[in-house]
Protein backbone atom coordinates (compact mmCIF):
# COMPACT_ATOMS: atom_id res chain seq x y z
CA UNK A 1 0.00 0.00 0.00
CA UNK A 2 0.99 3.60 -0.42
CA UNK A 3 1.90 5.70 2.51
CA UNK A 4 0.96 9.30 2.21
CA UNK A 5 4.32 10.56 3.40
CA UNK A 6 6.12 8.66 0.65
CA UNK A 7 3.68 9.87 -1.94
CA UNK A 8 3.99 13.49 -0.92
CA UNK A 9 7.78 13.24 -0.97
CA UNK A 10 7.92 11.56 -4.34
CA UNK A 11 5.37 13.74 -6.04
CA UNK A 12 6.53 16.93 -4.22
CA UNK A 13 2.87 17.71 -3.76
CA UNK A 14 3.39 19.84 -0.65
CA UNK A 15 5.30 22.32 -2.78
CA UNK A 16 2.09 23.19 -4.59
CA UNK A 17 1.66 26.95 -4.29
CA UNK A 18 -1.95 26.95 -5.40
CA UNK A 19 -0.97 29.16 -8.34
CA UNK A 20 -3.14 27.37 -10.89
CA UNK A 21 -0.70 27.32 -13.80
CA UNK A 22 -1.37 23.58 -14.17
CA UNK A 23 -5.04 24.28 -14.65
CA UNK A 24 -4.37 27.00 -17.24
CA UNK A 25 -2.36 24.69 -19.47
CA UNK A 26 -4.43 21.55 -18.83
CA UNK A 27 -6.23 20.57 -22.06
CA UNK A 28 -8.97 18.76 -20.12
CA UNK A 29 -9.66 21.75 -17.86
CA UNK A 30 -10.09 23.91 -20.95
CA UNK A 31 -13.10 21.87 -22.06
CA UNK A 32 -14.32 20.48 -18.74
CA UNK A 33 -14.84 23.17 -16.07
CA UNK A 34 -15.32 20.49 -13.40
CA UNK A 35 -11.79 19.21 -13.80
CA UNK A 36 -9.27 21.33 -11.98
CA UNK A 37 -5.81 19.92 -11.10
CA UNK A 38 -5.13 22.71 -8.62
CA UNK A 39 -8.33 22.04 -6.69
CA UNK A 40 -7.76 18.28 -6.69
CA UNK A 41 -4.36 18.78 -5.09
CA UNK A 42 -5.60 21.34 -2.57
CA UNK A 43 -8.65 19.27 -1.65
CA UNK A 44 -6.53 16.18 -1.08
CA UNK A 45 -4.06 18.05 1.09
CA UNK A 46 -6.84 19.61 3.13
CA UNK A 47 -8.47 16.25 3.73
CA UNK A 48 -5.22 14.70 4.90
CA UNK A 49 -4.58 12.61 1.82
CA UNK A 50 -8.14 11.57 1.09
CA UNK A 51 -8.62 12.63 -2.47
CA UNK A 52 -11.85 13.12 -4.32
CA UNK A 53 -13.03 9.64 -5.30
CA UNK A 54 -15.44 10.93 -7.92
CA UNK A 55 -15.28 11.06 -11.70
CA UNK A 56 -12.82 13.95 -11.76
CA UNK A 57 -9.77 11.84 -11.04
CA UNK A 58 -10.49 9.67 -14.09
CA UNK A 59 -10.68 12.64 -16.46
CA UNK A 60 -6.92 13.30 -16.32
CA UNK A 61 -5.27 12.17 -19.56
CA UNK A 62 -1.74 11.95 -18.08
CA UNK A 63 -0.36 14.25 -20.77
CA UNK A 64 2.10 15.78 -18.29
CA UNK A 65 1.47 19.29 -19.53
CA UNK A 66 0.96 20.41 -15.88
CA UNK A 67 4.30 18.92 -14.82
CA UNK A 68 5.96 20.69 -17.73
CA UNK A 69 4.55 24.05 -16.67
CA UNK A 70 4.85 23.72 -12.90
CA UNK A 71 7.57 25.94 -11.46
CA UNK A 72 8.18 23.54 -8.59
CA UNK A 73 8.00 20.33 -10.62
CA UNK A 74 5.04 18.96 -8.71
CA UNK A 75 4.32 15.60 -10.31
CA UNK A 76 0.58 15.78 -10.69
CA UNK A 77 0.41 12.78 -13.05
CA UNK A 78 2.04 10.58 -10.40
CA UNK A 79 -0.25 12.04 -7.80
CA UNK A 80 -3.37 11.22 -9.80
CA UNK A 81 -2.13 7.65 -10.07
CA UNK A 82 -2.03 7.48 -6.30
CA UNK A 83 -5.60 8.81 -6.07
CA UNK A 84 -6.73 6.27 -8.64
CA UNK A 85 -5.02 3.46 -6.80
CA UNK A 86 -6.78 4.45 -3.60
CA UNK A 87 -10.13 4.77 -5.36
CA UNK A 88 -9.75 1.33 -6.99
CA UNK A 89 -8.84 -0.18 -3.64
CA UNK A 90 -12.08 1.20 -2.26
CA UNK A 91 -13.94 -0.60 -5.03
CA UNK A 92 -15.03 2.37 -7.11
CA UNK A 93 -16.45 1.51 -10.52
CA UNK A 94 -14.80 2.94 -13.60
CA UNK A 95 -16.28 3.70 -16.98
CA UNK A 96 -14.16 1.56 -19.25
CA UNK A 97 -13.88 2.66 -22.85
CA UNK A 98 -14.24 0.03 -25.58
CA UNK A 99 -16.15 -2.28 -23.24
CA UNK A 100 -13.08 -2.91 -21.11
CA UNK A 101 -11.47 -5.02 -23.83
CA UNK A 102 -7.93 -3.62 -23.46
CA UNK A 103 -8.01 -4.21 -19.72
CA UNK A 104 -9.43 -7.74 -20.17
CA UNK A 105 -6.64 -8.54 -22.64
CA UNK A 106 -4.01 -7.19 -20.24
CA UNK A 107 -5.40 -9.20 -17.34
CA UNK A 108 -5.47 -12.35 -19.43
CA UNK A 109 -1.89 -11.75 -20.54
CA UNK A 110 -0.83 -11.42 -16.92
CA UNK A 111 -1.60 -15.09 -16.34
CA UNK A 112 1.49 -17.22 -16.01
CA UNK A 113 0.34 -20.15 -18.10
CA UNK A 114 -0.74 -18.22 -21.14
CA UNK A 115 1.12 -19.05 -24.34
CA UNK A 116 0.38 -16.42 -26.91
CA UNK A 117 0.30 -16.88 -30.60
CA UNK A 118 1.10 -13.29 -31.40
CA UNK A 119 3.51 -13.35 -34.32
CA UNK A 120 0.94 -14.11 -37.00
CA UNK A 121 1.24 -10.56 -38.37
CA UNK A 122 4.93 -10.99 -39.14
CA UNK A 123 5.67 -10.87 -42.89
CA UNK A 124 8.04 -13.45 -44.34
CA UNK A 125 10.54 -10.92 -45.70
CA UNK A 126 11.70 -9.92 -42.21
CA UNK A 127 14.74 -11.79 -40.91
CA UNK A 128 14.99 -12.59 -37.23
CA UNK A 129 18.13 -13.91 -35.58
CA UNK A 130 16.83 -16.10 -32.79
CA UNK A 131 20.11 -16.21 -30.85
CA UNK A 132 20.46 -12.44 -30.58
CA UNK A 133 20.37 -10.86 -27.13
CA UNK A 134 18.62 -7.80 -28.53
CA UNK A 135 14.86 -8.04 -28.49
CA UNK A 136 12.42 -5.93 -30.40
CA UNK A 137 9.47 -5.23 -28.11
CA UNK A 138 6.44 -5.02 -30.36
CA UNK A 139 3.85 -4.03 -27.77
CA UNK A 140 0.13 -4.39 -28.27
CA UNK A 141 0.01 -3.26 -31.91
CA UNK A 142 -1.22 -6.65 -33.25
CA UNK A 143 -4.06 -6.61 -30.72
CA UNK A 144 -4.95 -3.02 -31.53
CA UNK A 145 -5.28 -3.86 -35.21
CA UNK A 146 -7.92 -6.49 -34.48
CA UNK A 147 -9.64 -4.44 -31.83
CA UNK A 148 -9.89 -1.27 -33.90
CA UNK A 149 -10.17 -2.71 -37.37
CA UNK A 150 -13.35 -0.77 -38.07
CA UNK A 151 -11.35 2.45 -37.66
CA UNK A 152 -8.97 1.24 -40.34
CA UNK A 153 -5.87 1.68 -38.19
CA UNK A 154 -2.84 -0.37 -39.10
CA UNK A 155 -0.54 0.07 -36.14
CA UNK A 156 1.35 -3.15 -36.85
CA UNK A 157 2.55 -1.51 -40.08
CA UNK A 158 4.68 0.78 -37.89
CA UNK A 159 6.27 -2.23 -36.21
CA UNK A 160 6.82 -3.90 -39.58
CA UNK A 161 8.46 -0.72 -40.89
CA UNK A 162 10.74 -0.55 -37.85
CA UNK A 163 11.76 -4.19 -38.31
CA UNK A 164 12.48 -3.58 -42.00
CA UNK A 165 14.72 -0.63 -41.10
CA UNK A 166 16.62 -2.82 -38.63
CA UNK A 167 16.97 -5.51 -41.30
CA UNK A 168 18.22 -2.96 -43.79
CA UNK A 169 20.84 -1.64 -41.34
CA UNK A 170 21.76 -5.27 -40.55
CA UNK A 171 21.14 -4.98 -36.83
CA UNK A 172 20.33 -8.44 -35.47
CA UNK A 173 17.29 -8.73 -33.22
CA UNK A 174 14.88 -11.32 -31.96
CA UNK A 175 11.16 -11.25 -31.29
CA UNK A 176 9.56 -12.70 -28.19
CA UNK A 177 6.68 -15.02 -28.95
CA UNK A 178 5.28 -14.64 -25.48
CA UNK A 179 5.95 -11.01 -24.63
CA UNK A 180 3.24 -9.41 -22.52
CA UNK A 181 1.82 -5.95 -22.62
CA UNK A 182 4.14 -3.54 -20.81
CA UNK A 183 1.25 -2.71 -18.47
CA UNK A 184 1.47 1.05 -18.68
CA UNK A 185 -2.27 1.47 -19.02
CA UNK A 186 -2.91 -0.58 -15.90
CA UNK A 187 -0.32 1.45 -14.01
CA UNK A 188 -1.87 4.73 -15.15
CA UNK A 189 -5.34 3.66 -14.13
CA UNK A 190 -4.14 2.63 -10.69
CA UNK A 191 -4.22 -1.16 -11.11
CA UNK A 192 -0.80 -1.69 -9.58
CA UNK A 193 -1.29 -5.45 -8.98
CA UNK A 194 -2.10 -6.05 -12.64
CA UNK A 195 0.91 -4.02 -13.69
CA UNK A 196 3.23 -5.93 -11.37
CA UNK A 197 1.95 -9.28 -12.64
CA UNK A 198 2.68 -8.20 -16.23
CA UNK A 199 6.08 -6.78 -15.33
CA UNK A 200 7.13 -9.96 -13.58
CA UNK A 201 5.88 -12.14 -16.42
CA UNK A 202 7.84 -10.00 -18.88
CA UNK A 203 10.95 -10.11 -16.72
CA UNK A 204 10.76 -13.91 -16.59
CA UNK A 205 10.52 -14.05 -20.36
CA UNK A 206 13.47 -11.67 -20.77
CA UNK A 207 15.71 -13.61 -18.40
CA UNK A 208 14.66 -16.95 -19.95
CA UNK A 209 15.77 -15.70 -23.35
CA UNK A 210 18.86 -13.93 -21.99
CA UNK A 211 17.85 -10.53 -23.30
CA UNK A 212 20.36 -7.72 -22.67
CA UNK A 213 18.97 -4.96 -24.91
CA UNK A 214 15.50 -3.98 -25.91
CA UNK A 215 14.47 -1.83 -28.85
CA UNK A 216 10.89 -0.71 -29.12
CA UNK A 217 8.96 1.53 -31.44
CA UNK A 218 6.13 2.26 -29.00
CA UNK A 219 6.76 5.30 -26.77
CA UNK A 220 4.57 3.90 -24.00
CA UNK A 221 6.48 0.61 -23.89
CA UNK A 222 9.75 2.56 -24.05
CA UNK A 223 8.98 4.76 -21.07
CA UNK A 224 7.57 1.89 -19.01
CA UNK A 225 10.47 -0.44 -19.69
CA UNK A 226 13.05 2.27 -19.20
CA UNK A 227 11.68 4.17 -16.21
CA UNK A 228 8.98 2.16 -14.46
CA UNK A 229 10.36 -1.38 -14.67
CA UNK A 230 13.65 -0.61 -12.88
CA UNK A 231 11.59 0.80 -10.00
CA UNK A 232 9.36 -2.25 -9.66
CA UNK A 233 11.32 -5.24 -10.96
CA UNK A 234 14.27 -6.62 -9.04
CA UNK A 235 17.62 -7.12 -10.79
CA UNK A 236 16.66 -5.15 -13.86
CA UNK A 237 19.77 -4.62 -15.97
CA UNK A 238 18.39 -4.42 -19.50
CA UNK A 239 19.21 -1.47 -21.71
CA UNK A 240 16.19 0.01 -23.41
CA UNK A 241 16.33 2.17 -26.52
CA UNK A 242 13.63 3.75 -28.56
CA UNK A 243 13.67 3.00 -32.27
CA UNK A 244 14.30 6.69 -33.07
CA UNK A 245 17.41 6.64 -30.87
CA UNK A 246 18.63 3.63 -32.85
CA UNK A 247 17.84 5.01 -36.29
CA UNK A 248 19.29 8.53 -35.95
CA UNK A 249 22.94 7.44 -35.41
CA UNK A 250 22.56 5.05 -38.35
CA UNK A 251 21.42 7.91 -40.56
CA UNK A 252 24.24 10.14 -39.36
CA UNK A 253 26.84 7.41 -40.10
CA UNK A 254 25.24 6.85 -43.51
CA UNK A 255 24.56 3.23 -42.58
CA UNK A 256 20.94 3.86 -43.38
CA UNK A 257 20.00 6.14 -46.23
CA UNK A 258 16.31 6.77 -46.49
CA UNK A 259 14.66 7.37 -49.84
CA UNK A 260 12.75 10.37 -51.01
CA UNK A 261 9.11 11.24 -50.54
CA UNK A 262 7.55 14.31 -52.07
CA UNK A 263 5.01 15.14 -49.41
CA UNK A 264 4.32 17.82 -46.86
CA UNK A 265 4.11 16.39 -43.36
CA UNK A 266 3.63 17.55 -39.81
CA UNK A 267 4.94 15.68 -36.80
CA UNK A 268 2.71 15.02 -33.80
CA UNK A 269 4.73 14.73 -30.57
CA UNK A 270 3.44 11.91 -28.44
CA UNK A 271 3.27 12.91 -24.75
CA UNK A 272 5.15 9.82 -23.63
CA UNK A 273 7.99 10.23 -26.12
CA UNK A 274 8.12 13.99 -25.84
CA UNK A 275 7.36 15.40 -22.44
CA UNK A 276 7.97 12.17 -20.53
CA UNK A 277 11.05 10.84 -22.36
CA UNK A 278 12.38 14.15 -23.77
CA UNK A 279 12.83 12.77 -27.28
CA UNK A 280 11.91 15.67 -29.54
CA UNK A 281 14.65 15.97 -32.14
CA UNK A 282 15.25 12.39 -33.22
CA UNK A 283 11.94 11.81 -35.02
CA UNK A 284 12.31 15.17 -36.78
CA UNK A 285 15.82 14.25 -37.87
CA UNK A 286 14.54 11.01 -39.37
CA UNK A 287 11.92 12.93 -41.31
CA UNK A 288 14.45 15.57 -42.38
CA UNK A 289 16.72 12.90 -43.83
CA UNK A 290 14.08 11.93 -46.40
CA UNK A 291 14.56 13.69 -49.72
CA UNK A 292 11.87 16.12 -50.78
CA UNK A 293 9.94 15.82 -47.53
CA UNK A 294 8.75 19.15 -46.23
CA UNK A 295 8.16 19.34 -42.48
CA UNK A 296 5.83 21.95 -41.06
CA UNK A 297 5.20 22.40 -37.36
CA UNK A 298 1.81 22.63 -35.73
CA UNK A 299 0.92 25.60 -33.53
CA UNK A 300 1.61 23.54 -30.40
CA UNK A 301 4.71 21.45 -30.81
CA UNK A 302 7.58 19.89 -28.88
CA UNK A 303 7.18 20.57 -25.14
CA UNK A 304 3.86 22.29 -25.69
CA UNK A 305 2.38 19.67 -27.99
CA UNK A 306 -1.27 18.92 -27.45
CA UNK A 307 -2.08 15.38 -26.35
CA UNK A 308 -4.01 13.02 -28.63
CA UNK A 309 -6.70 13.29 -25.99
CA UNK A 310 -7.03 9.97 -24.26
CA UNK A 311 -5.24 7.88 -21.71
CA UNK A 312 -5.52 4.40 -20.29
CA UNK A 313 -8.74 3.41 -22.05
CA UNK A 314 -11.01 4.83 -19.35
CA UNK A 315 -13.56 7.62 -19.30
CA UNK A 316 -13.25 8.65 -22.90
CA UNK A 317 -15.95 11.18 -23.62
CA UNK A 318 -16.87 14.41 -25.29
CA UNK A 319 -13.98 16.33 -23.69
CA UNK A 320 -11.47 13.91 -25.16
CA UNK A 321 -13.10 14.21 -28.56
CA UNK A 322 -12.83 17.99 -28.38
CA UNK A 323 -9.11 17.80 -27.60
CA UNK A 324 -8.63 15.41 -30.51
CA UNK A 325 -10.54 17.70 -32.81
CA UNK A 326 -8.40 20.65 -31.74
CA UNK A 327 -5.24 18.67 -32.48
CA UNK A 328 -6.51 17.59 -35.89
CA UNK A 329 -7.49 21.17 -36.69
CA UNK A 330 -3.99 22.30 -35.79
CA UNK A 331 -2.64 19.68 -38.17
CA UNK A 332 -5.05 20.82 -40.88
CA UNK A 333 -4.04 24.46 -40.41
CA UNK A 334 -0.44 23.66 -41.33
CA UNK A 335 -1.55 22.58 -44.78
CA UNK A 336 0.28 19.27 -44.47
CA UNK A 337 -0.83 16.13 -46.34
CA UNK A 338 0.18 13.68 -43.64
CA UNK A 339 0.23 13.77 -39.86
CA UNK A 340 3.18 11.65 -38.79
CA UNK A 341 3.16 10.07 -35.37
CA UNK A 342 5.30 7.56 -33.58
CA UNK A 343 2.77 6.27 -31.06
CA UNK A 344 0.19 3.60 -31.97
CA UNK A 345 -2.22 4.95 -29.38
CA UNK A 346 -2.08 8.50 -30.80
CA UNK A 347 -2.85 6.98 -34.18
CA UNK A 348 -5.89 5.14 -32.82
CA UNK A 349 -7.25 8.10 -30.87
CA UNK A 350 -6.91 10.63 -33.67
CA UNK A 351 -8.33 8.19 -36.19
CA UNK A 352 -11.24 7.52 -33.85
CA UNK A 353 -12.00 11.25 -33.73
CA UNK A 354 -11.97 11.35 -37.54
CA UNK A 355 -14.20 8.31 -37.94
CA UNK A 356 -16.79 9.15 -35.31
CA UNK A 357 -17.32 12.78 -36.31
CA UNK A 358 -19.22 14.02 -39.34
CA UNK A 359 -17.01 13.99 -42.41
CA UNK A 360 -16.78 17.75 -42.87
CA UNK A 361 -16.68 18.45 -39.17
CA UNK A 362 -13.15 17.40 -38.44
CA UNK A 363 -9.93 17.56 -40.43
CA UNK A 364 -9.54 14.29 -42.36
CA UNK A 365 -5.76 14.43 -42.66
CA UNK A 366 -3.96 11.17 -43.40
CA UNK A 367 -2.28 9.69 -40.32
CA UNK A 368 0.86 7.59 -40.69
CA UNK A 369 3.47 5.99 -38.53
CA UNK A 370 6.98 7.40 -38.93
CA UNK A 371 8.63 3.99 -39.37
CA UNK A 372 6.04 2.82 -41.85
CA UNK A 373 6.85 5.95 -43.85
CA UNK A 374 10.62 5.48 -43.56
CA UNK A 375 10.37 1.83 -44.67
CA UNK A 376 8.18 2.85 -47.60
CA UNK A 377 10.73 5.42 -48.70
CA UNK A 378 13.39 2.69 -48.66
CA UNK A 379 11.17 0.49 -50.78
CA UNK A 380 10.50 3.21 -53.36
CA UNK A 381 14.25 3.92 -53.47
CA UNK A 382 14.97 0.29 -54.29
CA UNK A 383 12.32 0.20 -56.99
CA UNK A 384 13.65 3.30 -58.71
Amino acid sequence: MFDLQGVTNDTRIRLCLDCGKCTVVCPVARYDPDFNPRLIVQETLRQNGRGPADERIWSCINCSMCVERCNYNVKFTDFIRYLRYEALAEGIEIKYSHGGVPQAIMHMMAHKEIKQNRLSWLPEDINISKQSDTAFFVGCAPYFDVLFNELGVKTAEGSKGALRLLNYAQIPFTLLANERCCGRDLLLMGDAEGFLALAQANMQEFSRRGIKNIITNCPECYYTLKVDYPRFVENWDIKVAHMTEVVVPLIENSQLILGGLKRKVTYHDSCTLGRYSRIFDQPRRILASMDGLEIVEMADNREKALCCGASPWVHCGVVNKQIQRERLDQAGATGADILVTVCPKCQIHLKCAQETAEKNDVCQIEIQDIFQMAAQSLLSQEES
Partner: protein
Amino acid sequence: MTDKLYPEILVFACNWAGWSCVEAATNLGLHYPASVKIVKVNCLSRIHMGLILKAFDFGAEGVMLLGCEQGSCHFDTPGEYIINEYRKAQDILEMLGVWKDRLVLTQLPAFDGRQFVGQIAKLMEEIKRIPSSKRSKIIGPRPVQDIEVYI
Protein backbone atom coordinates in the same frame (compact mmCIF):
# COMPACT_ATOMS: atom_id res chain seq x y z
CA MET B 1 -9.92 -27.98 -14.44
CA THR B 2 -9.31 -31.55 -15.48
CA ASP B 3 -10.76 -32.88 -12.24
CA LYS B 4 -14.20 -31.62 -13.12
CA LEU B 5 -16.59 -33.78 -15.08
CA TYR B 6 -18.00 -30.99 -17.19
CA PRO B 7 -16.36 -27.78 -18.36
CA GLU B 8 -17.89 -24.54 -17.19
CA ILE B 9 -19.74 -22.80 -19.98
CA LEU B 10 -21.33 -19.39 -19.99
CA VAL B 11 -24.23 -18.87 -22.40
CA PHE B 12 -25.32 -15.40 -23.41
CA ALA B 13 -28.90 -16.05 -24.61
CA CYS B 14 -31.04 -13.44 -26.30
CA ASN B 15 -34.45 -12.91 -24.73
CA TRP B 16 -36.33 -14.13 -27.82
CA ALA B 17 -35.33 -17.14 -29.92
CA GLY B 18 -32.29 -17.89 -27.75
CA TRP B 19 -34.11 -17.97 -24.44
CA SER B 20 -37.06 -19.82 -25.94
CA CYS B 21 -34.68 -22.63 -26.92
CA VAL B 22 -33.51 -22.89 -23.31
CA GLU B 23 -37.11 -22.96 -22.08
CA ALA B 24 -38.09 -25.54 -24.70
CA ALA B 25 -35.21 -27.77 -23.58
CA THR B 26 -36.53 -27.56 -20.01
CA ASN B 27 -40.11 -28.26 -21.09
CA LEU B 28 -39.04 -31.26 -23.14
CA GLY B 29 -37.20 -32.63 -20.11
CA LEU B 30 -33.83 -32.61 -21.88
CA HIS B 31 -30.76 -32.65 -19.66
CA TYR B 32 -27.67 -30.58 -19.85
CA PRO B 33 -24.95 -30.24 -17.20
CA ALA B 34 -25.38 -27.80 -14.37
CA SER B 35 -22.03 -26.30 -15.23
CA VAL B 36 -23.80 -24.38 -18.00
CA LYS B 37 -24.67 -20.92 -16.73
CA ILE B 38 -27.08 -18.83 -18.74
CA VAL B 39 -27.18 -15.05 -18.82
CA LYS B 40 -30.27 -13.63 -20.46
CA VAL B 41 -29.80 -10.44 -22.46
CA ASN B 42 -32.38 -8.52 -24.43
CA CYS B 43 -30.61 -8.90 -27.74
CA LEU B 44 -27.28 -10.43 -28.71
CA SER B 45 -26.23 -7.12 -30.19
CA ARG B 46 -26.01 -5.99 -26.57
CA ILE B 47 -23.03 -8.31 -26.15
CA HIS B 48 -19.66 -6.85 -27.01
CA MET B 49 -16.18 -8.22 -27.01
CA GLY B 50 -15.42 -6.85 -23.55
CA LEU B 51 -18.08 -9.06 -21.96
CA ILE B 52 -16.95 -12.12 -23.90
CA LEU B 53 -13.32 -11.67 -22.90
CA LYS B 54 -14.30 -10.91 -19.34
CA ALA B 55 -16.11 -14.26 -19.15
CA PHE B 56 -12.86 -16.00 -20.07
CA ASP B 57 -10.93 -13.70 -17.76
CA PHE B 58 -13.18 -14.77 -14.88
CA GLY B 59 -12.66 -18.45 -15.57
CA ALA B 60 -15.25 -19.67 -18.10
CA GLU B 61 -13.91 -22.52 -20.19
CA GLY B 62 -16.35 -21.95 -23.00
CA VAL B 63 -18.68 -19.18 -24.06
CA MET B 64 -21.75 -19.61 -26.26
CA LEU B 65 -23.59 -16.74 -27.89
CA LEU B 66 -27.13 -18.00 -28.41
CA GLY B 67 -29.35 -15.86 -30.56
CA CYS B 68 -31.94 -15.59 -33.29
CA GLU B 69 -31.35 -16.80 -36.79
CA GLN B 70 -29.92 -14.35 -39.27
CA GLY B 71 -32.58 -11.85 -40.30
CA SER B 72 -35.17 -12.77 -37.68
CA CYS B 73 -34.05 -10.47 -34.87
CA HIS B 74 -36.93 -9.24 -32.72
CA PHE B 75 -35.59 -5.71 -32.87
CA ASP B 76 -34.52 -5.88 -36.51
CA THR B 77 -30.91 -5.18 -35.57
CA PRO B 78 -28.57 -6.22 -38.33
CA GLY B 79 -26.99 -9.59 -37.56
CA GLU B 80 -23.58 -8.39 -38.72
CA TYR B 81 -23.04 -6.65 -35.42
CA ILE B 82 -22.71 -9.78 -33.32
CA ILE B 83 -20.93 -11.65 -36.12
CA ASN B 84 -18.37 -8.84 -36.28
CA GLU B 85 -17.83 -8.88 -32.50
CA TYR B 86 -17.66 -12.68 -32.54
CA ARG B 87 -14.99 -12.72 -35.24
CA LYS B 88 -12.95 -10.03 -33.51
CA ALA B 89 -13.17 -11.88 -30.19
CA GLN B 90 -12.07 -15.09 -31.91
CA ASP B 91 -9.07 -13.31 -33.43
CA ILE B 92 -8.06 -11.88 -30.05
CA LEU B 93 -8.50 -15.27 -28.35
CA GLU B 94 -6.43 -16.91 -31.05
CA MET B 95 -3.66 -14.36 -30.50
CA LEU B 96 -3.81 -14.87 -26.76
CA GLY B 97 -3.41 -18.61 -27.35
CA VAL B 98 -6.76 -19.42 -25.76
CA TRP B 99 -8.06 -21.75 -28.52
CA LYS B 100 -10.70 -19.85 -30.37
CA ASP B 101 -13.10 -22.82 -30.65
CA ARG B 102 -14.02 -22.20 -27.03
CA LEU B 103 -16.22 -19.38 -28.26
CA VAL B 104 -19.19 -20.30 -30.45
CA LEU B 105 -21.98 -18.33 -32.04
CA THR B 106 -25.16 -20.40 -32.25
CA GLN B 107 -28.11 -18.98 -34.14
CA LEU B 108 -31.20 -21.14 -33.76
CA PRO B 109 -34.86 -20.93 -34.71
CA ALA B 110 -37.24 -20.30 -31.80
CA PHE B 111 -38.21 -23.22 -29.48
CA ASP B 112 -35.52 -25.55 -30.78
CA GLY B 113 -34.58 -27.12 -27.45
CA ARG B 114 -33.07 -30.25 -28.93
CA GLN B 115 -30.63 -28.40 -31.07
CA PHE B 116 -29.61 -26.17 -28.15
CA VAL B 117 -28.75 -29.19 -26.01
CA GLY B 118 -26.99 -30.74 -28.98
CA GLN B 119 -24.89 -27.62 -29.49
CA ILE B 120 -23.99 -27.50 -25.79
CA ALA B 121 -22.85 -31.13 -25.96
CA LYS B 122 -20.83 -30.34 -29.08
CA LEU B 123 -19.12 -27.38 -27.40
CA MET B 124 -18.29 -29.54 -24.38
CA GLU B 125 -16.76 -32.19 -26.62
CA GLU B 126 -14.78 -29.46 -28.34
CA ILE B 127 -13.43 -28.15 -25.04
CA LYS B 128 -12.54 -31.65 -23.85
CA ARG B 129 -10.48 -32.14 -27.02
CA ILE B 130 -8.32 -29.15 -26.12
CA PRO B 131 -4.95 -30.29 -24.76
CA SER B 132 -5.02 -30.08 -20.99
CA SER B 133 -2.16 -27.58 -20.92
CA LYS B 134 -4.35 -25.14 -22.80
CA ARG B 135 -7.51 -25.98 -20.93
CA SER B 136 -6.64 -24.47 -17.62
CA LYS B 137 -8.67 -21.55 -16.49
CA ILE B 138 -7.26 -18.27 -17.63
CA ILE B 139 -7.31 -16.54 -14.31
CA GLY B 140 -7.72 -18.08 -10.93
CA PRO B 141 -7.94 -16.10 -7.75
CA ARG B 142 -4.90 -13.88 -7.94
CA PRO B 143 -2.47 -14.07 -5.02
CA VAL B 144 -2.37 -10.83 -3.10
CA GLN B 145 1.15 -9.58 -3.41
CA ASP B 146 2.69 -8.01 -0.40
CA ILE B 147 4.91 -5.70 -2.36
CA GLU B 148 5.35 -2.12 -1.47
CA VAL B 149 3.88 -0.31 -4.37
CA TYR B 150 5.34 2.91 -5.53
CA ILE B 151 3.26 4.96 -7.90
